[in-house]
């Protein structure tokens, strides 16, 4: 036994020496890259942006040290003020891909900034918010938006003020999965996906109404799209898990939701996985909505564009974007003009592309707006009363480009 142990130690010494010499410790087939140092933590590039009632373009994100900052521009992104760090105590902020900080403006100089704070347990989080009553000159300390305080998923929030000044916050929530696991078969799989919850604030984020369930069985890891309704309210579209495991999209008007949400896409994508790819939604001038989403239909993965009726039901033809590598698309509209933007990687560069229509989505033309070899965020559209711009953050710069009119 002693001989075996000594032999093991000799072999171990050889293995350790090999590792010390950068030869790799897991056999000859080990990639050379493994000899490099462990990567350092880096802040995500994902940002939120919005235009204030007085026309300033605001940006919220994480700087290279992982600190939450705001920044504003008076000339639509040509020049920017100095970044201003926000005091969020010891919070960490999720800012990666579909999870990003957001900013929204109320009618009476209110500004709210939200983010997801990851908690100690995997897949858990809280929706946090900072509020300003003076147009963003000062901000409150962060606070939690929802009443439920379990150590579970409350993530992927979206927020917007409606025309009446009501602040809507919508998020993905797993309290029902926890309940199902306790009362059902004792497993999280007793409940399909997560749920969409929401609340309302009528005082600019100072106080909130109760947590309200919008829908059972949402996908767990995709952003939620919000768009104003013609009546002045707010509509939501999200990736849903229709029975048994179909990850298509659902639609509901907040405050007027039916018992079951409207199915807004019919890709019939059967999948037990996380697409990390939420939809985009914009009101259409002729009624209803323009929508974009990613999915796999009959084995073909694509970002698709379609029109939705006022109740979210699909309307007319669904079209694939003219780019097989399109991802993380957004849609915006100004009157009869429609813009769909996305990013696309060709193996060398990520390209920012737009599909533009002057006839409410009947016909589109393709344009390339920018390209980068740097790491980059998902692009997003910003609507102002007079124009629509696309904002795209790369590792070195922030592109703000006009797309409409």
């Amino acid at each position, binding site marked *: 036994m002693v001989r075996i142990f000594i032999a093991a130690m000799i072999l171990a010494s050889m293995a*350790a020496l090999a590792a010390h010499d950068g030869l790799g410790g897991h056999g000859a087939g080990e990639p050379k890259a493994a000899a490099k140092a*462990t990567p350092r933590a880096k802040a995500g590039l994902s940002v939120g942006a919005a235009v204030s009632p007085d026309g300033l373009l605001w940006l919220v994100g994480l700087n290279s040290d992982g600190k939450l900052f705001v920044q504003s521009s008076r000339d639509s992104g040509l020049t920017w003020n100095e970044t201003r760090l926000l005091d969020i105590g010891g919070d960490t902020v999720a800012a990666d*891909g579909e999870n990003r900080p957001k900013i929204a403006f109320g009618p009476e100089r209110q500004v709210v900034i939200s983010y997801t704070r990851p908690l100690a347990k995997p897949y858990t989080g809280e929706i946090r918010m900072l509020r300003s009553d003076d147009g963003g000159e000062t901000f409150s300390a962060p606070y939690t938006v929802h009443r439920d305080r379990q150590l579970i998923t409350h993530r992927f929030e979206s927020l917007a003020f409606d025309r009446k000044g009501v602040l809507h916050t919508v998020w993905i929530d797993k309290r029902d999965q926890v309940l199902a696991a306790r009362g059902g078969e004792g497993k999280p799989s007793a409940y399909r996906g997560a749920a969409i919850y929401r609340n309302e604030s009528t005082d600019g984020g100072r106080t909130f109404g109760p947590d309200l369930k919008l829908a059972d069985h949402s996908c767990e890891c995709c952003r939620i799209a919000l768009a104003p309704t013609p009546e002045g309210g707010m509509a939501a579209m999200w990736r849903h898990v229709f029975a048994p495991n179909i990850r298509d999209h659902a639609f509901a008007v907040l405050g007027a939701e039916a018992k079951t949400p409207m199915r807004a896409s019919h890709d019939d994508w059967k999948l037990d996985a*996380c697409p990390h*790819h939420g939809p985009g939604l914009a009101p259409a001038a002729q009624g209803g909505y323009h929508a974009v989403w990613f999915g796999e239909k009959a084995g073909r993965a694509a970002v698709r564009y379609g029109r939705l009726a006022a109740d979210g039901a699909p309307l007319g033809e669904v079209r694939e974007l003219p780019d097989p590598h399109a991802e993380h698309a957004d849609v915006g509209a100004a009157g009869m003009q429609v813009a769909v933007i996305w990013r696309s990687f060709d193996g060398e560069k990520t390209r920012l592309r737009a599909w533009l229509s002057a006839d409410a989505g009947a016909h589109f033309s393709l344009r390339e707006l920018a390209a980068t070899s740097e790491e980059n965020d998902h692009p997003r559209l910003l609507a102002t009363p007079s124009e629509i711009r696309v904002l795209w953050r790369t590792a070195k710069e922030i592109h703000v480009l006009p797309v409409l009119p």
Partner: protein
Amino acid sequence: MSCLSFPERFTYLRRLLAAASGLLLSASGALAAPEALRPFAADTWNELARAPQRPQAVVFSTRDCTHCPGVIDSLAQSIKKSGAKARLVVVVMDGAGLEADLLKDRHYRQADVLYAFDGAAVSLRYRVNPGWRGLTPYVILVPAQGEPQFFSGAPPTPAVRDFLRP
């Protein structure tokens, strides 16, 4: 050894003990947990996929992927039950800089090798498969001979069975 500074000596001894315990665990038939988080860089996929000496089940995961732990568990169990000399490789796409946390995670500890993306995710994904849009878990079964098979989500049982067949 004599030319090493004190921290280097400490690291050396840590590796020595880890390697020794790994050997003892291997001798007893138990899986050894990964000792470090390795960077998954631009060339890593090509090197992993290029005629490995052992078959490899590679799982691309993210920290917010609720389906990933189950797929990692299932593949780890299948490999163990089969007695095949296959290797379980897990790549945590958003795990850079989180070595301490990830190495404590019971799911990730089932991997023989644990990586985190080191570089632009969109570029690293493209190198693995241009058609992959970031969905997780993304599973690739790399046989010792033959072409890798790509799966969105859990691979079907027959595919895993064929992959692990001697």
